[in-house]
């Protein structure tokens, strides 16, 4: 390997590191006035609206959302129990639930806030040279007491083996998980959904401020 070649590789690695750094501050800063005022301690994740072509997407997605929210410092209601109870009460239809008054759910569950998530895309495009997997999610957090919208975010993650193979070990790991799944005909969307959630929840100036169970609770005003 020539020195120039090596330098090029190093530069590529550094670039991809910078590109991957999810904690890098992002210029636009959300307005957190309503959020800070509501000061939610708990989050109820209701059935997910599915606009994708994959009927299984909402359930699979549900397995990825509790952890990032809880690790951010919030009490997250048990997603599977919530789903069952809502189905039993005739609230299994996600579109209807999303259209309904958040304060009704807030009262029913004793929840400070309700998280409404829509799956816009959850699909794979197969081609000989450019197979790509896309997960596109919209999040909206509403107050369980006033119904006011406290936070919204949209996150799209696209994975394509050709683009991601730039020598970044972390990307390679995710790639490996997804490629293995593509090989079995049905891609594993979960790693992409997990990434989307992590970025959405944690990104400085865009994500959720630290919740009551986090050490930075109410002291991260500069970042959020």
């Amino acid at each position, binding site marked *: 390997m020539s020195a120039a070649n*090596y330098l090029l590789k190093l530069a590529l690695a550094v670039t991809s590191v910078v590109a991957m750094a999810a904690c890098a501050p992002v210029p636009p800063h959300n307005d957190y006035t309503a959020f800070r005022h509501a000061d939610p301690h708990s989050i109820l994740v209701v059935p997910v609206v599915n606009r994708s072509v994959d009927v299984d997407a909402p*359930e699979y997605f549900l397995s990825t959302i509790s952890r990032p929210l*809880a690790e951010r410092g919030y009490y*997250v*209601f048990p997603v599977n*129990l919530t789903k069952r109870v809502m189905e039993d009460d005739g609230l299994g239809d996600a579109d209807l639930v999303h259209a309904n008054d958040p304060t009704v759910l807030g009262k029913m569950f*004793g929840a400070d806030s309700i998280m409404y998530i829509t799956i816009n895309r959850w699909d794979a495009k197969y081609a000989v040279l450019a197979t790509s997997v896309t997960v596109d999610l919209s999040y909206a957090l509403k107050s369980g007491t006033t119904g006011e919208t406290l936070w919204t975010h949209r996150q799209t993650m696209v994975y394509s083996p050709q683009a991601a193979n730039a020598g970044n070990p972390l990307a390679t790991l995710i790639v490996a998980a997804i490629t293995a799944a593509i090989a079995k005909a049905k891609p594993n969307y979960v790693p992409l959904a997990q990434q989307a959630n992590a970025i959405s929840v944690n990104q400085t100036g865009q994500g959720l401020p630290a919740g009551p169970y986090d050490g930075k609770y109410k002291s991260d005003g500069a970042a959020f």
Partner: protein
Amino acid sequence: MKVWRFAVVLAVVGMTAACAPQTKYAWGNYESSLYEYYKTPGDTTAFAQHLADTISKAEASGKKVPPGIYAEYGQVLLESGDSKQAAVFFEKEKTAWPESTVFMTTMIRVASSTKEPKQ
């Protein structure tokens, strides 16, 4: 050359580690077992076993059991007809997480009014 490459890998790992601090809770295999449960609906036994494992490992680790896990376990117990034990776990959720009080009070009432086991 190899040393350099190793250094780059270390730097990348270091940076990502800086973004992802230690987890607050011992999640065990909650996420993957819920995924499997949705993939193979009806396999409540496996899901119940995984939840029980997650809880006992978390309790032994000294880290907190994540929010919702006691209640998820309570739900599968209720579904399998063990309403008495279900109420115990709903109670545990309520004690561990005061935010769940309203919901868990409802679930405890549901569990205690479910006298006869299903099947």
